[in-house]
């Protein structure tokens, strides 16, 4: 049987059905080791089964992806009429940009369930239902090709997250954090809806491929100013969700409060994907005009995030600002409109999500043991928890961009892309970005030093923790393995990403920017590694060329 036409609907329906089912199953009381009454694990187990099934289904996509499809076409499409007036369609599809993001969302969900296994002991029914609903919204965002449908998932994604923060937040501040998160995202989204309606009024369609074609042929009949305003409405709504500096006001509170499983999927990919898909897809010219500003903001975000992370002693706040720095890297890369920057940026979305998720997971494990995120309370843990220390070090090294691990590939491509771009002051922005790498190494390694080495802290003396248990090993090793595989075999991912990144960058790139076109050609024509089909689009061998060129 051919699953291709319905696979996306299946991927969406699985967690949705799971969420409804879990909401209907009543909670059952069990007892923990100390004899305290807690909910039994039936909801957690159910959620694990559902998320694993979803992951399995998402793997269908890379297995059957057609790498030779022409640019701007979508695969696994499903296109049904939903509402006739206004013309809203249930239109789903996948291309090189969204494919790995969908798999990523599929992968993070079971990890999130495992991370909440012991951390969430009460009201598990509510927790796992909301968590699965959040996954539906996220997957929907990556798949929707109808602007209206997309907007539906986009708004929907706010609700479970806000409720998760409000209900399962850590401190008394949780409700404030949830409302702040919701308002920050909702108000620009409301303006985004006006922009979508305005576009519909002009073109009579919500269909993304149609709109893209119309915009590409300059067939949208509106003044340049109106189009620019419209594109700003799109961009601001996405930028808040990323968040792009200086719209990151919600991030610290939300990250501090949110439970581990929620914070793993909180920032980054939804907003960045939306910029790539919609801002670049519909507003190519306007995006090019705004690129210098966004590159500057990206570089500023890297510097600002890294510097603030350096002075934070609360581990979650540190992680929040390191997230800001990492997503700013992606912003920097994609707005250069060079093939290297674009591909690297998209790859870095995957890296950032994985590294961030692993980092938050580890912080969650520490919190489960010692009940604090304050760095000063820790110290000298390495001898007590050798495995955990190892995992922390691996994750930190991936985050700071150690060669052979995945972070390096993304950051290197982005910085090379920035250097190549013809945007003003590109040397300055590259330098700022590179400084961010150094600061990044600074705060991550400093954090490792303060938590795991030195003399034992107050809290670590009081409480006797334990090293990783087998469930926790199961959570962390896939991440570690992925860091390594994505670091040394990036072409496996790049191959799909490049089918989106290269044509998009080439089309949007400012005229008179030879490098991107040349490099694309170079990438595609170098025969040196042609004996391996996978390596055909490999960037790694060409990085040396690119580096030489830059020199």
């Amino acid at each position, binding site marked *: 049987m051919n699953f291709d036409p319905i696979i996306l609907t299946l991927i969406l329906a699985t967690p949705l059905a799971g969420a409804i089912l879990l909401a209907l199953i009543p909670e059952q009381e069990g007892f923990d080791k100390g004899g305290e009454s807690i909910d039994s694990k039936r909801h957690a187990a159910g959620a694990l089964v559902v998320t694993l099934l979803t992951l399995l289904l998402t793997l269908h996509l890379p297995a059957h992806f057609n790498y030779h499809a022409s640019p701007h076409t979508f695969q696994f499409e499903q296109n049904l009429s939903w509402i006739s007036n206004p013309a809203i369609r249930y239109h789903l599809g996948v291309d090189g940009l969204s494919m790995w993001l969908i798999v990523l969302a599929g992968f993070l969900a079971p990890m999130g369930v495992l991370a909440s296994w012991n951390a969430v002991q009460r009201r598990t029914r509510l927790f796992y239902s909301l968590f699965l609903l959040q996954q539906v919204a996220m997957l929907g965002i990556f798949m929707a090709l109808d602007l209206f449908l997309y907007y*539906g998932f986009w708004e929907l994604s706010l609700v479970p997250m806000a409720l998760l923060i409000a209900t399962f937040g850590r401190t008394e501040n949780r409700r404030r954090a949830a409302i702040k998160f919701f308002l920050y995202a909702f108000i620009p989204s409301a303006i985004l809806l006006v922009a979508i309606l305005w576009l519909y009024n002009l073109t009579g369609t919500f269909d993304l491929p149609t709109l893209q074609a119309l915009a590409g042929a300059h067939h949208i009949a509106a003044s340049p100013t109106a189009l620019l305003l419209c594109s700003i409405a799109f961009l601001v709504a996405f930028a808040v969700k990323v968040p792009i500096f200086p719209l990151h006001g919600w991030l610290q509170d939300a990250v501090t409060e949110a439970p581990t499983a929620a914070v793993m999927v909180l920032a980054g990919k939804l907003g960045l994907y939306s910029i790539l898909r919609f801002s670049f897809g519909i507003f190519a010219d306007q995006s090019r005009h705004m690129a210098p500003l966004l590159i500057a903001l990206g570089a500023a975000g890297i510097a600002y995030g890294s510097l603030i992370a350096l002075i934070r002693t609360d581990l979650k706040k540190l992680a929040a600002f390191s997230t800001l720095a990492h997503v700013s890297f992606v912003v920097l890369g994609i707005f250069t409109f060079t093939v290297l920057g674009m591909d690297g940026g998209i790859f870095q979305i995957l890296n950032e999500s994985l590294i961030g998720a692993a980092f938050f997971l580890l912080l969650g494990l520490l919190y489960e043991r010692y009940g604090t995120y304050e760095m000063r309370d820790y110290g000298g843990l390495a001898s007590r928890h050798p495995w955990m220390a190892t995992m922390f070090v691996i994750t930190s090294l991936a985050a700071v961009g150690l060669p052979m691990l995945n972070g390096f590939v993304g950051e290197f491509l982005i910085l090379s892309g920035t250097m190549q771009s013809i945007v003003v002051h590109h040397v300055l922005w590259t330098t700022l970005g590179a400084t961010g790498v150094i600061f990044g190494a600074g705060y991550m390694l400093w954090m490792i030093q303060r938590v795991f080495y030195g003399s034992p802290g107050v809290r670590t003396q009081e409480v006797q923790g334990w090293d990783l248990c087998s469930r926790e090993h199961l959570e962390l090793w896939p991440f570690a393995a992925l860091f390594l595989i994505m670091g040394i075999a990036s072409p496996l991912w790049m191959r799909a990403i490049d089918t989106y990144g290269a044509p998009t960058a080439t089309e949007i790139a400012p005229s008179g920017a030879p490098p991107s076109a040349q490099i694309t050609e170079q990438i595609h024509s170098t025969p040196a590694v042609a004996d391996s089909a996978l390596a055909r689009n490999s960037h790694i061998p060409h990085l040396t060329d690119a580096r030489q060129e830059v020199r």
Partner: protein
Amino acid sequence: MSTNLLALLPELILTLTAILVMLLEPLLAVGASRKPLGWLAILGSLGSGVAALFQLRVVHALGTLTGFYGTIQVDAFSIFFHLLIASIVVTTLLASLDYFPPDQISHAGEYFALVLFGATGMMFMTSSAELLMVFIGLEISSISTYILAGFRKGRATASESAIKYFLLGSFATAFFLYGIALCFGATGSTTIAGIGAGLAATKTPLFGWLAVGMVLIGLGFKVSAAPFHVWTPDVYQGAPAPVVGLMSTAPKAAAFAVLLRFLFEAAPTDRHHWAPLIAIMAVASMTIGNLGALLQSDAKRLLAYSSIAHAGYLLVAFTAPEPLAVSTACFYTAAYAAMNVGAFVVLTQLSGFDERLRTIDDLTGLALRRPALAAFLAFFLLSLIGIPFTGGFFGKFYVFSAAVHSGYTWLAIVGLANSGLACFYYLRLLTALYARPTTDTIGDAPTPHCLSIPAGLALIATAAATLLLGILPNRILSLTQRAAPSTVAQCVMQK
């Protein structure tokens, strides 16, 4: 065909049922349950709904039904509102069956009858093609709701509610009546079509303007649009919860129906004159409603301010040209009715007759004690916010796309920014439902009684309507779109 009783069939059924309820009431023993009367009333309102459906078939086959010398006009437009009002009344009655405590049970019969009489007046408003008839309908519905507002006898807030509503309401009706008089003076007619023709031909536009303005004030009060909204919070706070659910939706729907008919049929040529005025009223209502709600801690007052804001969103639809405006406004009215009645059914179930749980603090941690009720309320609140896949979202979507379509993009931006503002207070309530109670005192609060089956039915019906309007808005929209062209056709026909 001067007296066409078919044209008044739903109203007749309602009135007869109400009279029957009044007659049977004294026959029941003093302390006996009034539930049979309630079921009778429900049956009656269901019957009127069925009658409206029958009218729809007749209208489809034979065209618009007119009666009583052209003062009653039954078309798809009025049938839509008949059905809506009948559904709201059925839901309200279902939710009120178990509302009365034993010591108040003897008043339940009057209550059921008054709800039916009020609904009669509202239906009458929507099928009148003549302003004096509209006025009579308005009075029937208003007087019933004045009494219903003060139904929690002996409580200061209830008396305040009823008296405030009565005084300000009569003041507003006086404006409306004065407007009718001016219309008659300006055009020599009191039928809507006659006024339209007269206003188009008049040589003294100022007179006509004044008349339209007065009517607008009278109806603005009924829909609680700013600046005629000041009564809303106090009245809603003091009135019984199921009554608030009724009077925040059904009379408003009727008044909006009259406003639609009046503005688009009596003054259609002047659209560009009065549309900016309506836009200003819309902005004022949205902003005042939402800003006012930010400060509220009482759930009913919060929803009162939210209803002012929603009247503002609805008014945005009036800036569009006729067919679009009518279908959009009809859709929004239906969506708002479903979610708001639903929210008040939950509040009714939670707090009961003596309103034990009123403030947001009282409701904190509700999900722990009553997960099903909390989930329903959360769903209605999400719909009020306008989260996709709910009726509230499509309502807002259609309204603001109508505004963008007719060149009022600024209004859409203001409106959607306002809906962003509105999230804040809805979320305050919503997150409170799911929060852990901050103090242990919540354990001492009286546990509300179990969910009764009729109230459960009401909740499921409103939630299903809200969800269906959010997932398959096509069906209801095609009905409302059929409602729109018929009014245009008559307008053209009668000129």
